[in-house]
């Protein structure tokens, strides 16, 4: 009568990846492999100015002299960088004036994901910049935004439209030689999003972008740049799901955020790249560099992330708190299941006086997965009276998964305060029995308990995103109970 708790959890956590499908859109691709020629090809395709080509080549040359980082608690076979196609784009037909002109198959894809542009547009009032395989297909609401002087477009478009802004800020938060993957991205980045909020403007709507990997063997190298000018406010959302593929796909994005004096930038993301199958085959390698700088006094940058996907996640959204009284926040839920591996966390670098940072990290591990929190809190000499509070909790489902916490704290002055709390817990049989006794099946019970556990983070998400995230958390741990 007694069941092995591991078996029960297996049954419950073996949900198939629900977004596994593949859209066939005509591709225009770069030749396989990486060389200066590849980079020139990409740059030419995008009709880029000379300085940007130089930026790319410079990054490439630095990358050649670097080696892949090995310090993370992650394991994967060596990546063959010559076996990757670095550029793929749906063939440009003509400028699109309305949704009717968008490739029906593309609309279909969005419908399957439950994020149809029409729905988004009509119901939620969200401007969607949908990126499929590197090239922006459609930007909505751009007119509304334009009136306020807000620039929200694809990165490539920004290079054409506002090259000075791009040139001024790009690479200032994440230098092109910051790390191995950042250097790679800087050399070959294909597209991404650009957002500029002018002085004193509060962006009236949530800005949202959906990314999606959609071609075999195509590394994805998005690049996002968000600039909040003095006294501005913006809430930016990015979410993604990827179709089921057998081969590993490399994803090495860069996100840079700049908040000037009194500006606030809120960045939310739900990440659901294909995690691989139950045996740990396939799945996306997600090696991302995300960093923001609170450049001016009283500025604020807040990262919220819900991570359920990818075979491997390597990601540490960080904030450099340069302006006095500036605030940095990091709220994270990371779910790993089966053979997924995640090494994620945050860095808060306090440079200014009276700066404040908060880190709330909730790791949830199931199956044979490994989930690590890695964080750095640095209080420099000048950061008088700076404060940090970190809370890192791990929830284990079953006893074959792992949770690890690596907090690094460096304090160079006597007036700053760093607080760190960490807990590890399990879903208890008593909790499951209690839910079951109310008629709630084990699968739903786990979804309910996990969502409750992550509530502190989920409530940071914009409403429409939170609902999606809650579903995703349940789905990623779901399966048929036998």
């Amino acid at each position, binding site marked *: 009568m007694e069941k092995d708790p591991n078996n029960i959890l297996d049954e419950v956590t073996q949900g198939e990846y629900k977004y596994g499908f593949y859209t066939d859109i005509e591709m225009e691709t770069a030749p396989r492999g990486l060389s200066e020629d590849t980079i020139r090809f990409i740059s030419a395709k995008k009709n880029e100015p000379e300085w940007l080509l130089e930026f790319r080549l410079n990054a490439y040359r630095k990358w050649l002299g670097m080696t892949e980082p090995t310090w993370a608690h992650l394991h994967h076979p060596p990546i063959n960088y010559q076996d990757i196609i670095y550029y793929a784009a749906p063939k440009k037909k003509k400028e699109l004036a309305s949704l009717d002109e968008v490739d029906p198959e593309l609309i279909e894809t969005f419908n399957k994901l439950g994020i149809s542009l029409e729905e988004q547009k009509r119901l939620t009032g969200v401007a969607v910049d949908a990126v499929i395989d590197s090239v922006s297909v459609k930007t909505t609401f751009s007119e509304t935004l334009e009136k306020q002087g807000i620039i929200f477009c694809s990165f490539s478009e920004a290079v054409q439209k506002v090259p000075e802004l791009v040139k001024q800020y790009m690479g200032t938060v994440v230098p092109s030689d910051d790390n191995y993957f950042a250097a790679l991205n800087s050399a070959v980045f294909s597209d991404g999003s650009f957002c500029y909020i002018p002085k004193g403007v509060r962006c009236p709507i949530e800005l949202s972008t959906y990314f999606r990997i959609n071609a075999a063997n195509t590394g994805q190298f998005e690049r996002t740049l968000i600039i909040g000018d003095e006294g501005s406010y913006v809430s930016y959302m990015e979410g993604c799901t990827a179709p089921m593929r057998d081969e590993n796909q490399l994803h090495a994005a860069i996100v840079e955020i700049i908040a000037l004096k009194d500006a606030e930038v809120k960045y939310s993301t739900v990440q659901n790249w294909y995690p691989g199958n139950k045996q740990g085959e396939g799945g996306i390698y997600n090696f991302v560099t995300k960093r923001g700088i609170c450049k001016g006094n009283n500025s604020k940058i807040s990262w919220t992330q819900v991570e359920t996907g990818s075979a491997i996640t390597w990601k540490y959204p960080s904030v450099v708190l340069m302006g006095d009284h500036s605030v940095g926040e990091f709220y994270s839920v990371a779910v790993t299941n089966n053979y997924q591996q995640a090494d994620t966390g945050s860095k808060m670098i306090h440079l200014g006086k009276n700066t404040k940072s908060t880190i709330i990290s909730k790791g949830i591990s199931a199956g044979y997965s490994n989930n690590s929190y890695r964080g750095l809190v640095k209080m420099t000499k000048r950061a008088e009276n700076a404060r940090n509070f970190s809370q890192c909790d791990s929830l284990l489902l079953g006893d074959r998964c792992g949770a690890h916490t690596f907090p690094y704290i460096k304090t160079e002055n006597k007036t700053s305060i760093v607080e760190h709390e960490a807990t590890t817990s399990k879903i*208890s049989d008593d909790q499951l029995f209690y839910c079951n*006794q109310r008629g*709630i099946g084990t699968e739903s019970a786990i979804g309910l308990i996990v969502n409750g556990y992550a509530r502190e983070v989920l409530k940071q998400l914009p409403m429409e995103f939170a609902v999606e995230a809650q579903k995703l958390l349940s789905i990623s741990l779901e399966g048929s109970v036998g």
Partner: protein
Amino acid sequence: MLSIKNLRVSIEGKEILKGINLEVRPGEVHAIMGPNGTGKSTLASVIAGRDIFEVEEGEIIFNGKNLLEMPVEDRASEGIFLSFQYPVEIPGVSITNFMRTAVNEQRKYHGLDPMPANEFLAKMEEKKRMLDIHAKLANRSVNEGFSGGEKKKNEIFQLAMLEPTLAILDETDSGLDIDALKVVANGVNKLRRPDNAFLVITHYQRLLEYIVPDIVHVLFDGRIVRSGGKELAMELEEKGYEWIRSEA
């Protein structure tokens, strides 16, 4: 409605229930009394389906269905409700969300669509009023940081929301102050119908003054050693268990 025959249950090789026989008919209230550690909660858990207990022998039939072959959640949807002696905390899950999930999962079991949101909220309001529960409590996480009495009240609130056919109250009175005890007892009495039944586990005669039982059973060392009318509870209160012990 509930028929238990020769139920023998053990845990970790130790026999706890040593042949229980019990018949509960619709409309009845049964009380189960007995010293600490004699197996009252074990009996409640086994009816509800807790799988850490080994059923060695016997059967439990509920409305013609063999409960022992059913998973816990199906038993619940069939109409079994257990008010826990020690309610469990579920951090971050609001009572509203918890109840909505429970109500709708039970409806799904019976092939019904989810309850419309306004109907559900109206029902929540009605039951909260009936049990004198603060509006704020429903927004708090299930049992997290609740006082002992609040936890027990919350159990009865859930009972009221789920409207089971057989409700088992495991020491619901312990931890309640006198006023709360009356509120809870009144609530239970309002929920009584000709087609449902209650199994009330308690140490104290006081609760039974409010929720008047049809039959009182004394559970002693894994066996029901005596059954009688409500006066049996009075007798126990007067004489204590030594009286039973000397007879057993």
